[in-house]
Protein backbone atom coordinates (compact mmCIF):
# COMPACT_ATOMS: atom_id res chain seq x y z
CA UNK A 1 0.00 0.00 0.00
CA UNK A 2 3.05 2.19 0.20
CA UNK A 3 3.04 3.01 -3.53
CA UNK A 4 -0.45 4.58 -3.72
CA UNK A 5 0.05 6.33 -0.36
CA UNK A 6 3.37 7.88 -1.33
CA UNK A 7 2.15 8.65 -4.85
CA UNK A 8 -0.72 10.58 -3.32
CA UNK A 9 1.64 12.53 -1.01
CA UNK A 10 3.79 13.50 -3.98
CA UNK A 11 0.77 14.52 -6.09
CA UNK A 12 -0.45 16.75 -3.27
CA UNK A 13 2.99 18.40 -3.13
CA UNK A 14 3.08 19.07 -6.88
CA UNK A 15 -0.55 20.21 -7.04
CA UNK A 16 -0.08 22.61 -4.13
CA UNK A 17 2.95 24.16 -5.80
CA UNK A 18 1.02 24.61 -9.05
CA UNK A 19 -1.97 26.11 -7.27
CA UNK A 20 0.33 28.83 -5.93
CA UNK A 21 0.77 30.05 -9.51
CA UNK A 22 -2.32 31.98 -10.57
CA UNK A 23 -1.01 32.45 -14.13
CA UNK A 24 -0.64 28.70 -14.52
CA UNK A 25 -4.24 28.12 -13.39
CA UNK A 26 -5.58 30.84 -15.69
CA UNK A 27 -3.74 29.46 -18.73
CA UNK A 28 -4.71 25.92 -17.80
CA UNK A 29 -8.35 26.89 -18.19
CA UNK A 30 -8.16 29.51 -20.94
CA UNK A 31 -5.81 27.78 -23.37
CA UNK A 32 -8.13 24.87 -24.31
CA UNK A 33 -10.97 27.34 -24.94
CA UNK A 34 -8.71 29.31 -27.25
CA UNK A 35 -7.98 26.15 -29.25
CA UNK A 36 -11.64 25.29 -29.48
CA UNK A 37 -12.80 28.76 -30.49
CA UNK A 38 -9.94 29.61 -32.90
CA UNK A 39 -9.92 26.31 -34.78
CA UNK A 40 -13.70 26.13 -34.63
CA UNK A 41 -14.02 29.49 -36.38
CA UNK A 42 -11.13 28.98 -38.81
CA UNK A 43 -12.36 25.65 -40.21
CA UNK A 44 -16.07 26.29 -39.73
CA UNK A 45 -17.05 25.57 -43.35
CA UNK A 46 -14.73 22.64 -43.95
CA UNK A 47 -17.46 20.05 -43.22
CA UNK A 48 -18.89 20.81 -46.68
CA UNK A 49 -16.06 18.69 -48.07
CA UNK A 50 -17.75 15.62 -46.61
CA UNK A 51 -16.61 12.68 -44.49
CA UNK A 52 -16.93 14.50 -41.18
CA UNK A 53 -19.92 12.52 -39.92
CA UNK A 54 -21.64 15.77 -38.95
CA UNK A 55 -22.32 19.16 -40.48
CA UNK A 56 -21.32 20.93 -37.26
CA UNK A 57 -17.54 21.38 -37.35
CA UNK A 58 -17.46 22.32 -33.66
CA UNK A 59 -19.07 18.96 -32.81
CA UNK A 60 -16.45 17.20 -34.94
CA UNK A 61 -13.66 19.27 -33.40
CA UNK A 62 -14.52 19.35 -29.66
CA UNK A 63 -13.57 15.75 -28.73
CA UNK A 64 -10.38 16.04 -30.78
CA UNK A 65 -9.41 19.28 -29.02
CA UNK A 66 -9.86 17.50 -25.70
CA UNK A 67 -7.35 14.88 -26.85
CA UNK A 68 -4.95 17.35 -28.47
CA UNK A 69 -4.87 19.47 -25.34
CA UNK A 70 -4.15 16.53 -23.09
CA UNK A 71 -1.44 15.32 -25.49
CA UNK A 72 0.29 18.73 -25.47
CA UNK A 73 0.07 18.87 -21.69
CA UNK A 74 1.76 15.47 -21.44
CA UNK A 75 4.71 16.44 -23.63
CA UNK A 76 5.58 19.17 -21.09
CA UNK A 77 5.11 17.06 -17.98
CA UNK A 78 8.79 16.06 -17.85
CA UNK A 79 9.77 19.67 -17.10
CA UNK A 80 8.50 19.30 -13.54
CA UNK A 81 10.74 16.25 -13.14
CA UNK A 82 13.76 18.15 -14.46
CA UNK A 83 12.99 20.84 -11.87
CA UNK A 84 12.81 18.27 -9.07
CA UNK A 85 16.11 16.73 -10.21
CA UNK A 86 17.83 20.13 -10.49
CA UNK A 87 16.68 21.20 -7.06
CA UNK A 88 17.81 17.85 -5.56
CA UNK A 89 14.29 17.17 -4.29
CA UNK A 90 14.44 13.67 -5.77
CA UNK A 91 17.78 12.98 -4.08
CA UNK A 92 16.39 14.06 -0.73
CA UNK A 93 13.56 11.53 -1.07
CA UNK A 94 15.98 8.84 -2.23
CA UNK A 95 17.68 9.02 1.17
CA UNK A 96 14.32 8.19 2.80
CA UNK A 97 12.17 5.03 2.55
CA UNK A 98 9.93 6.88 0.03
CA UNK A 99 8.59 4.51 -2.63
CA UNK A 100 10.84 4.82 -5.70
CA UNK A 101 7.96 4.08 -8.04
CA UNK A 102 5.85 6.84 -6.47
CA UNK A 103 8.47 9.48 -7.29
CA UNK A 104 7.93 8.93 -11.04
CA UNK A 105 4.35 7.72 -11.01
CA UNK A 106 3.19 10.84 -9.15
CA UNK A 107 4.37 13.05 -12.02
CA UNK A 108 2.44 10.93 -14.53
CA UNK A 109 -0.75 10.79 -12.46
CA UNK A 110 -0.58 14.50 -11.65
CA UNK A 111 -0.27 15.23 -15.36
CA UNK A 112 -3.24 12.97 -16.18
CA UNK A 113 -5.41 14.53 -13.46
CA UNK A 114 -4.63 17.99 -14.82
CA UNK A 115 -5.65 16.78 -18.28
CA UNK A 116 -8.87 15.37 -16.80
CA UNK A 117 -9.79 18.74 -15.28
CA UNK A 118 -9.03 20.54 -18.53
CA UNK A 119 -11.13 18.02 -20.45
CA UNK A 120 -14.15 18.81 -18.29
CA UNK A 121 -13.66 22.52 -18.94
CA UNK A 122 -13.42 22.01 -22.71
CA UNK A 123 -16.51 19.80 -22.73
CA UNK A 124 -18.47 22.41 -20.77
CA UNK A 125 -17.44 25.15 -23.20
CA UNK A 126 -18.33 22.85 -26.09
CA UNK A 127 -21.71 22.22 -24.51
CA UNK A 128 -22.28 25.97 -24.35
CA UNK A 129 -21.31 26.23 -28.03
CA UNK A 130 -24.04 23.71 -28.88
CA UNK A 131 -22.06 20.46 -29.01
CA UNK A 132 -24.18 17.46 -27.94
CA UNK A 133 -22.48 14.20 -27.00
CA UNK A 134 -24.44 11.50 -28.81
CA UNK A 135 -23.90 8.80 -26.21
CA UNK A 136 -24.77 11.15 -23.33
CA UNK A 137 -23.16 10.95 -19.88
CA UNK A 138 -21.32 7.73 -20.73
CA UNK A 139 -19.80 9.52 -23.71
CA UNK A 140 -18.56 12.35 -21.49
CA UNK A 141 -16.86 9.88 -19.19
CA UNK A 142 -15.30 8.01 -22.12
CA UNK A 143 -13.90 11.21 -23.63
CA UNK A 144 -12.38 12.24 -20.29
CA UNK A 145 -10.96 8.77 -19.67
CA UNK A 146 -9.43 8.58 -23.15
CA UNK A 147 -7.90 12.04 -22.70
CA UNK A 148 -6.30 10.90 -19.45
CA UNK A 149 -5.00 7.72 -21.10
CA UNK A 150 -3.41 9.70 -23.96
CA UNK A 151 -1.90 12.02 -21.39
CA UNK A 152 -0.50 9.21 -19.22
CA UNK A 153 1.00 7.46 -22.23
CA UNK A 154 2.91 10.55 -23.37
CA UNK A 155 3.65 11.75 -19.83
CA UNK A 156 5.46 8.45 -19.20
CA UNK A 157 7.62 9.06 -22.27
CA UNK A 158 8.20 12.67 -21.22
CA UNK A 159 9.27 11.57 -17.71
CA UNK A 160 11.64 9.02 -19.20
CA UNK A 161 13.19 11.62 -21.48
CA UNK A 162 13.48 14.04 -18.55
CA UNK A 163 15.38 11.41 -16.58
CA UNK A 164 17.63 10.67 -19.55
CA UNK A 165 18.42 14.24 -20.62
CA UNK A 166 17.99 16.05 -17.24
CA UNK A 167 17.93 19.30 -19.23
CA UNK A 168 15.08 21.75 -19.66
CA UNK A 169 16.29 22.91 -23.07
CA UNK A 170 16.39 19.34 -24.43
CA UNK A 171 12.90 18.71 -23.08
CA UNK A 172 11.43 21.82 -24.72
CA UNK A 173 13.09 21.03 -28.06
CA UNK A 174 11.81 17.45 -27.96
CA UNK A 175 8.28 18.51 -27.03
CA UNK A 176 8.20 20.89 -29.99
CA UNK A 177 9.74 18.32 -32.27
CA UNK A 178 7.07 15.65 -31.68
CA UNK A 179 4.09 17.88 -30.82
CA UNK A 180 2.99 19.36 -34.13
CA UNK A 181 3.86 16.39 -36.41
CA UNK A 182 1.75 14.04 -34.27
CA UNK A 183 -1.07 16.58 -34.30
CA UNK A 184 -1.09 16.92 -38.12
CA UNK A 185 -0.65 13.18 -38.65
CA UNK A 186 -4.05 12.68 -37.07
CA UNK A 187 -7.64 13.47 -37.92
CA UNK A 188 -7.78 16.12 -35.17
CA UNK A 189 -8.60 19.00 -37.52
CA UNK A 190 -9.68 17.28 -40.73
CA UNK A 191 -11.74 14.20 -41.51
CA UNK A 192 -9.69 11.16 -42.42
CA UNK A 193 -11.28 11.11 -45.86
CA UNK A 194 -9.74 14.51 -46.63
CA UNK A 195 -6.19 13.41 -45.71
CA UNK A 196 -3.63 12.22 -48.30
CA UNK A 197 -3.33 8.44 -48.44
CA UNK A 198 0.12 8.18 -46.84
CA UNK A 199 -0.99 10.36 -43.94
CA UNK A 200 -4.07 8.22 -43.41
CA UNK A 201 -1.81 5.14 -43.21
CA UNK A 202 0.64 6.83 -40.86
CA UNK A 203 -2.18 8.08 -38.63
CA UNK A 204 -3.17 4.48 -37.88
CA UNK A 205 0.08 4.16 -35.89
CA UNK A 206 -0.29 7.51 -34.14
CA UNK A 207 -1.45 7.18 -30.51
CA UNK A 208 -2.86 10.71 -30.65
CA UNK A 209 -5.10 9.53 -33.47
CA UNK A 210 -6.19 6.46 -31.46
CA UNK A 211 -7.41 8.88 -28.81
CA UNK A 212 -9.09 11.21 -31.32
CA UNK A 213 -10.87 8.30 -33.00
CA UNK A 214 -12.14 6.87 -29.72
CA UNK A 215 -13.28 10.23 -28.32
CA UNK A 216 -14.96 11.33 -31.55
CA UNK A 217 -16.65 7.96 -31.95
CA UNK A 218 -18.69 8.44 -28.76
CA UNK A 219 -19.54 12.07 -29.55
CA UNK A 220 -20.86 11.60 -33.11
CA UNK A 221 -23.82 9.41 -34.04
CA UNK A 222 -23.17 5.83 -35.17
CA UNK A 223 -20.82 4.93 -32.32
CA UNK A 224 -18.76 1.79 -33.00
CA UNK A 225 -18.09 0.54 -29.46
CA UNK A 226 -15.82 -2.23 -30.67
CA UNK A 227 -13.53 0.31 -32.32
CA UNK A 228 -13.63 2.48 -29.18
CA UNK A 229 -12.65 -0.56 -27.12
CA UNK A 230 -9.75 -1.44 -29.42
CA UNK A 231 -8.34 2.09 -29.32
CA UNK A 232 -8.70 2.30 -25.55
CA UNK A 233 -6.90 -1.05 -25.35
CA UNK A 234 -4.03 0.23 -27.51
CA UNK A 235 -3.72 3.34 -25.34
CA UNK A 236 -3.80 1.34 -22.11
CA UNK A 237 -1.05 -0.93 -23.43
CA UNK A 238 1.02 2.11 -24.43
CA UNK A 239 0.56 3.56 -20.94
CA UNK A 240 2.04 0.44 -19.40
CA UNK A 241 4.97 0.44 -21.84
CA UNK A 242 5.73 4.14 -21.32
CA UNK A 243 5.43 3.87 -17.53
CA UNK A 244 7.87 0.95 -17.73
CA UNK A 245 10.20 3.12 -19.81
CA UNK A 246 10.01 5.93 -17.24
CA UNK A 247 10.62 3.48 -14.40
CA UNK A 248 13.68 1.96 -16.08
CA UNK A 249 15.20 5.39 -16.84
CA UNK A 250 14.68 6.26 -13.17
CA UNK A 251 16.57 3.14 -12.18
CA UNK A 252 19.40 4.10 -14.55
CA UNK A 253 19.46 7.58 -13.03
CA UNK A 254 19.72 6.12 -9.52
CA UNK A 255 22.59 3.87 -10.57
CA UNK A 256 24.46 6.84 -12.01
CA UNK A 257 24.56 8.61 -8.62
Amino acid at each position, binding site marked *: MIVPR*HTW*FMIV*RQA*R*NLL*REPIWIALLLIQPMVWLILYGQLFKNVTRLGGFGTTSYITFLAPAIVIMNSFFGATWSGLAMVGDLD*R*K*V*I*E*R*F*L*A*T*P*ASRLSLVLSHIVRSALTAGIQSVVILLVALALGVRVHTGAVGWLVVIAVAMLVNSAFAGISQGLALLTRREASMITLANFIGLPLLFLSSTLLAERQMPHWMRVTAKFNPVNWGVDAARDVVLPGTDWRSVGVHVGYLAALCIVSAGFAHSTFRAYR*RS*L
Partner: protein
Amino acid sequence: METIVVEGLRKRYGDVQALDGVSFAVRAGEIFALLGPNGAGKSTTVRVLATLSRADEGRASVAGHDVAREADAVRRAIGYVPQESGVDRFGTGRENLMLQGRVQGMRGRDLRARVDELLELVGIADAADRVVNGYSGGMKRRLDIALGLVHRPPVLFLDEPTTGLDPEARVALWKEVGRLAARETLSILLTTHYLDEADELADRLAILSAGRVVVEGTPVGLKSELRGDAVTIELANGRADDARRALIGADAPVETALGDGRTLISRVDDGGQALPRILAALGDAGIAVEWVAVSRPSLDDVYLHYTGRDFAADDRGE
Protein backbone atom coordinates in the same frame (compact mmCIF):
# COMPACT_ATOMS: atom_id res chain seq x y z
CA MET B 1 28.88 1.10 20.82
CA GLU B 2 29.63 2.11 17.25
CA THR B 3 26.76 3.47 15.14
CA ILE B 4 28.70 3.85 11.92
CA VAL B 5 31.34 1.38 10.79
CA VAL B 6 33.11 1.96 7.49
CA GLU B 7 35.60 -0.57 6.15
CA GLY B 8 37.68 -0.16 3.02
CA LEU B 9 35.20 1.79 0.86
CA ARG B 10 36.30 2.30 -2.73
CA LYS B 11 34.42 4.10 -5.44
CA ARG B 12 35.39 5.23 -8.89
CA TYR B 13 33.67 7.85 -11.07
CA GLY B 14 35.14 7.43 -14.54
CA ASP B 15 38.82 8.29 -14.22
CA VAL B 16 38.54 9.60 -10.69
CA GLN B 17 39.16 7.30 -7.73
CA ALA B 18 36.85 9.18 -5.37
CA LEU B 19 37.26 6.74 -2.49
CA ASP B 20 40.43 4.72 -2.16
CA GLY B 21 39.87 2.51 0.87
CA VAL B 22 38.11 4.70 3.43
CA SER B 23 37.76 3.22 6.94
CA PHE B 24 36.61 4.80 10.19
CA ALA B 25 34.06 4.30 12.96
CA VAL B 26 31.66 6.65 14.71
CA ARG B 27 30.54 5.96 18.27
CA ALA B 28 26.98 6.40 19.51
CA GLY B 29 26.19 9.93 20.63
CA GLU B 30 29.29 11.65 19.31
CA ILE B 31 29.85 14.34 16.72
CA PHE B 32 32.34 12.99 14.24
CA ALA B 33 33.86 15.18 11.54
CA LEU B 34 35.24 14.11 8.19
CA LEU B 35 37.71 16.86 7.49
CA GLY B 36 39.42 17.36 4.19
CA PRO B 37 39.89 19.69 1.23
CA ASN B 38 37.49 19.78 -1.72
CA GLY B 39 37.59 16.55 -3.69
CA ALA B 40 38.97 14.46 -0.82
CA GLY B 41 35.93 12.14 -0.94
CA LYS B 42 33.91 13.44 2.03
CA SER B 43 30.60 13.88 0.22
CA THR B 44 31.01 10.61 -1.66
CA THR B 45 31.51 8.80 1.66
CA VAL B 46 28.36 10.35 3.10
CA ARG B 47 26.37 9.56 -0.06
CA VAL B 48 27.36 5.91 0.23
CA LEU B 49 26.35 5.88 3.90
CA ALA B 50 23.01 7.57 3.05
CA THR B 51 22.33 4.78 0.46
CA LEU B 52 22.32 7.25 -2.46
CA SER B 53 25.44 5.82 -4.07
CA ARG B 54 26.87 2.33 -4.03
CA ALA B 55 30.51 1.66 -3.26
CA ASP B 56 32.48 -0.50 -5.70
CA GLU B 57 34.22 -2.28 -2.83
CA GLY B 58 34.18 -2.33 0.94
CA ARG B 59 31.46 -2.48 3.58
CA ALA B 60 29.62 0.02 5.69
CA SER B 61 26.91 -0.23 8.30
CA VAL B 62 24.79 2.46 9.90
CA ALA B 63 22.82 1.84 13.11
CA GLY B 64 23.56 -1.85 12.74
CA HIS B 65 22.29 -2.15 9.14
CA ASP B 66 24.37 -2.82 6.06
CA VAL B 67 24.02 0.13 3.66
CA ALA B 68 23.93 -2.07 0.54
CA ARG B 69 21.79 -4.99 1.72
CA GLU B 70 19.44 -3.27 4.19
CA ALA B 71 19.10 0.11 2.53
CA ASP B 72 15.51 0.76 3.68
CA ALA B 73 16.38 0.07 7.33
CA VAL B 74 19.30 2.49 7.01
CA ARG B 75 17.02 5.12 5.42
CA ARG B 76 14.69 4.94 8.42
CA ALA B 77 17.60 5.35 10.81
CA ILE B 78 19.24 8.37 9.22
CA GLY B 79 18.63 12.02 8.57
CA TYR B 80 20.56 13.20 5.53
CA VAL B 81 21.22 16.91 5.14
CA PRO B 82 22.91 17.24 1.75
CA GLN B 83 25.39 19.90 0.70
CA GLU B 84 22.89 21.27 -1.80
CA SER B 85 19.52 21.70 -0.15
CA GLY B 86 16.86 19.29 -1.40
CA VAL B 87 14.04 21.35 0.01
CA ASP B 88 11.01 22.06 -2.18
CA ARG B 89 11.37 25.81 -2.67
CA PHE B 90 7.80 26.29 -3.78
CA GLY B 91 6.31 24.74 -0.66
CA THR B 92 6.23 26.20 2.86
CA GLY B 93 8.59 25.11 5.61
CA ARG B 94 5.77 23.29 7.37
CA GLU B 95 4.62 21.48 4.20
CA ASN B 96 8.16 20.29 3.56
CA LEU B 97 8.47 18.94 7.10
CA MET B 98 5.04 17.26 7.05
CA LEU B 99 5.80 15.48 3.77
CA GLN B 100 9.21 14.36 5.00
CA GLY B 101 7.59 12.92 8.12
CA ARG B 102 4.90 11.16 6.06
CA VAL B 103 7.35 9.35 3.79
CA GLN B 104 9.18 8.33 6.97
CA GLY B 105 5.94 6.68 8.09
CA MET B 106 4.78 9.25 10.65
CA ARG B 107 1.22 10.54 10.74
CA GLY B 108 -1.50 12.32 12.66
CA ARG B 109 -1.01 14.20 15.88
CA ASP B 110 2.46 12.78 16.51
CA LEU B 111 3.69 14.21 13.19
CA ARG B 112 2.04 17.60 13.67
CA ALA B 113 3.45 17.94 17.17
CA ARG B 114 6.92 16.91 16.02
CA VAL B 115 6.85 19.45 13.17
CA ASP B 116 5.81 22.23 15.57
CA GLU B 117 8.56 21.19 17.98
CA LEU B 118 11.24 21.22 15.26
CA LEU B 119 10.15 24.55 13.79
CA GLU B 120 10.56 25.97 17.28
CA LEU B 121 13.82 24.12 17.92
CA VAL B 122 15.61 25.38 14.79
CA GLY B 123 14.09 28.82 15.16
CA ILE B 124 11.96 29.19 12.02
CA ALA B 125 8.52 28.91 13.64
CA ASP B 126 7.61 32.45 12.54
CA ALA B 127 8.30 31.58 8.90
CA ALA B 128 6.72 28.12 9.04
CA ASP B 129 3.83 28.94 6.72
CA ARG B 130 5.79 31.03 4.24
CA VAL B 131 7.07 29.64 0.95
CA VAL B 132 10.72 28.60 1.30
CA ASN B 133 11.77 30.67 -1.72
CA GLY B 134 11.64 33.74 0.51
CA TYR B 135 13.87 32.30 3.25
CA SER B 136 17.41 33.56 3.92
CA GLY B 137 20.36 31.19 3.44
CA GLY B 138 20.61 30.55 7.16
CA MET B 139 16.88 29.84 7.48
CA LYS B 140 16.99 27.40 4.56
CA ARG B 141 19.89 25.60 6.19
CA ARG B 142 17.95 25.32 9.46
CA LEU B 143 14.99 23.90 7.58
CA ASP B 144 17.31 21.39 5.86
CA ILE B 145 18.51 20.22 9.25
CA ALA B 146 14.98 20.03 10.62
CA LEU B 147 14.01 17.89 7.59
CA GLY B 148 16.74 15.45 8.57
CA LEU B 149 15.46 15.26 12.14
CA VAL B 150 11.67 14.84 11.66
CA HIS B 151 11.53 11.11 12.29
CA ARG B 152 13.89 11.26 15.30
CA PRO B 153 16.71 9.32 13.63
CA PRO B 154 19.61 8.06 15.76
CA VAL B 155 22.09 9.19 13.07
CA LEU B 156 22.33 12.55 11.31
CA PHE B 157 24.56 13.30 8.32
CA LEU B 158 25.48 16.94 7.81
CA ASP B 159 27.31 17.41 4.53
CA GLU B 160 29.15 20.76 4.58
CA PRO B 161 26.48 22.37 6.76
CA THR B 162 27.92 25.89 6.79
CA THR B 163 29.26 26.22 3.25
CA GLY B 164 27.84 29.34 1.64
CA LEU B 165 26.76 30.94 4.92
CA ASP B 166 28.12 34.27 6.11
CA PRO B 167 30.41 34.12 9.19
CA GLU B 168 27.68 35.22 11.56
CA ALA B 169 25.22 32.58 10.36
CA ARG B 170 28.03 30.03 10.53
CA VAL B 171 28.70 30.62 14.20
CA ALA B 172 24.96 30.61 14.92
CA LEU B 173 24.61 27.25 13.17
CA TRP B 174 27.53 25.80 15.12
CA LYS B 175 25.72 26.69 18.34
CA GLU B 176 22.56 25.15 16.94
CA VAL B 177 24.27 21.87 16.04
CA GLY B 178 25.90 21.66 19.47
CA ARG B 179 22.53 22.27 21.11
CA LEU B 180 20.77 19.66 18.93
CA ALA B 181 23.41 17.06 19.66
CA ALA B 182 22.91 17.63 23.36
CA ARG B 183 19.10 17.62 23.20
CA GLU B 184 18.35 14.83 20.79
CA THR B 185 20.05 11.48 21.25
CA LEU B 186 22.08 11.68 18.12
CA SER B 187 25.28 10.61 16.46
CA ILE B 188 26.29 13.26 13.95
CA LEU B 189 28.60 12.67 11.03
CA LEU B 190 29.66 16.04 9.73
CA THR B 191 31.79 16.78 6.71
CA THR B 192 33.61 20.04 6.44
CA HIS B 193 36.53 21.70 4.74
CA TYR B 194 36.76 24.25 7.52
CA LEU B 195 39.43 23.30 10.02
CA ASP B 196 37.95 25.60 12.66
CA GLU B 197 34.55 23.98 12.21
CA ALA B 198 35.88 20.51 12.96
CA ASP B 199 37.86 21.91 15.86
CA GLU B 200 34.80 23.66 17.27
CA LEU B 201 32.19 20.92 16.82
CA ALA B 202 33.74 17.49 16.62
CA ASP B 203 34.31 15.10 19.49
CA ARG B 204 36.47 13.10 17.12
CA LEU B 205 37.52 13.52 13.52
CA ALA B 206 39.14 11.79 10.61
CA ILE B 207 41.24 13.66 8.08
CA LEU B 208 40.49 12.62 4.53
CA SER B 209 42.90 13.22 1.69
CA ALA B 210 42.64 11.82 -1.86
CA GLY B 211 40.03 9.23 -0.92
CA ARG B 212 41.80 7.88 2.18
CA VAL B 213 41.66 8.50 5.90
CA VAL B 214 45.05 9.89 6.83
CA VAL B 215 44.54 10.04 10.57
CA GLU B 216 41.71 9.65 13.07
CA GLY B 217 41.49 11.03 16.60
CA THR B 218 40.20 13.81 18.84
CA PRO B 219 41.05 17.42 17.88
CA VAL B 220 42.95 17.85 21.15
CA GLY B 221 44.73 14.54 20.82
CA LEU B 222 45.79 15.19 17.24
CA LYS B 223 47.10 18.62 18.07
CA SER B 224 48.98 17.41 21.13
CA GLU B 225 50.69 14.76 19.05
CA LEU B 226 52.47 17.62 17.37
CA ARG B 227 55.29 18.54 19.66
CA GLY B 228 55.18 22.20 20.66
CA ASP B 229 54.69 25.30 18.55
CA ALA B 230 55.19 25.94 14.87
CA VAL B 231 57.63 28.65 13.84
CA THR B 232 57.04 29.78 10.28
CA ILE B 233 59.90 31.63 8.61
CA GLU B 234 59.64 33.41 5.27
CA LEU B 235 63.08 33.89 3.72
CA ALA B 236 63.73 37.18 1.94
CA ASN B 237 66.30 35.96 -0.62
CA GLY B 238 66.02 32.18 -0.69
CA ARG B 239 69.18 30.25 0.42
CA ALA B 240 66.90 27.62 1.95
CA ASP B 241 69.70 25.04 2.37
CA ASP B 242 71.85 27.42 4.39
CA ALA B 243 68.81 28.34 6.45
CA ARG B 244 68.06 24.67 7.18
CA ARG B 245 71.63 24.17 8.43
CA ALA B 246 71.43 27.24 10.61
CA LEU B 247 68.10 26.07 12.07
CA ILE B 248 69.52 22.65 12.97
CA GLY B 249 72.25 24.53 14.83
CA ALA B 250 69.57 26.52 16.66
CA ASP B 251 67.87 23.25 17.72
CA ALA B 252 64.85 24.07 15.53
CA PRO B 253 65.11 21.65 12.59
CA VAL B 254 62.80 22.34 9.63
CA GLU B 255 59.77 20.07 9.56
CA THR B 256 58.19 21.18 6.30
CA ALA B 257 58.95 23.57 3.49
CA LEU B 258 56.12 25.19 1.57
CA GLY B 259 55.72 26.78 -1.82
CA ASP B 260 59.03 27.24 -3.61
CA GLY B 261 61.00 26.49 -0.46
CA ARG B 262 61.03 30.08 0.74
CA THR B 263 58.68 29.29 3.62
CA LEU B 264 60.11 26.99 6.29
CA ILE B 265 58.27 25.57 9.26
CA SER B 266 60.11 24.34 12.35
CA ARG B 267 58.62 22.71 15.40
CA VAL B 268 59.94 23.74 18.81
CA ASP B 269 58.89 23.17 22.42
CA ASP B 270 58.32 26.82 23.21
CA GLY B 271 58.07 29.21 20.31
CA GLY B 272 58.56 32.37 22.36
CA GLN B 273 61.78 31.09 23.87
CA ALA B 274 63.15 29.67 20.62
CA LEU B 275 62.55 32.76 18.51
CA PRO B 276 65.58 34.87 19.62
CA ARG B 277 67.82 31.79 19.20
CA ILE B 278 66.46 31.14 15.68
CA LEU B 279 66.82 34.74 14.55
CA ALA B 280 70.36 34.94 15.95
CA ALA B 281 71.39 31.75 14.14
CA LEU B 282 69.94 32.99 10.84
CA GLY B 283 71.55 36.37 11.37
CA ASP B 284 74.95 34.79 12.03
CA ALA B 285 74.63 32.84 8.77
CA GLY B 286 73.81 36.08 6.94
CA ILE B 287 70.34 34.98 5.87
CA ALA B 288 67.71 37.70 5.40
CA VAL B 289 64.24 37.01 6.86
CA GLU B 290 61.04 38.56 5.49
CA TRP B 291 58.85 37.66 8.46
CA VAL B 292 58.47 35.13 11.25
CA ALA B 293 55.36 33.80 12.98
CA VAL B 294 54.86 31.56 15.99
CA SER B 295 51.65 29.53 16.25
CA ARG B 296 50.14 27.02 18.61
CA PRO B 297 49.38 23.71 16.89
CA SER B 298 46.16 23.85 14.86
CA LEU B 299 44.38 21.32 12.70
CA ASP B 300 46.15 23.03 9.78
CA ASP B 301 49.37 21.76 11.28
CA VAL B 302 47.88 18.32 11.77
CA TYR B 303 46.88 18.21 8.11
CA LEU B 304 50.29 19.42 7.04
CA HIS B 305 52.01 16.96 9.33
CA TYR B 306 50.14 13.91 8.07
CA THR B 307 49.84 14.74 4.38
CA GLY B 308 52.93 16.87 3.87
CA ARG B 309 50.73 19.36 2.05
CA ASP B 310 49.19 22.73 2.76
CA PHE B 311 45.47 22.48 3.50
CA ALA B 312 44.44 25.75 1.86
CA ALA B 313 46.32 24.93 -1.34
CA ASP B 314 44.73 21.46 -1.49
CA ASP B 315 41.32 22.98 -0.92
CA ARG B 316 41.79 25.27 -3.91
CA GLY B 317 42.82 22.19 -5.89
CA GLU B 318 46.42 23.29 -6.43
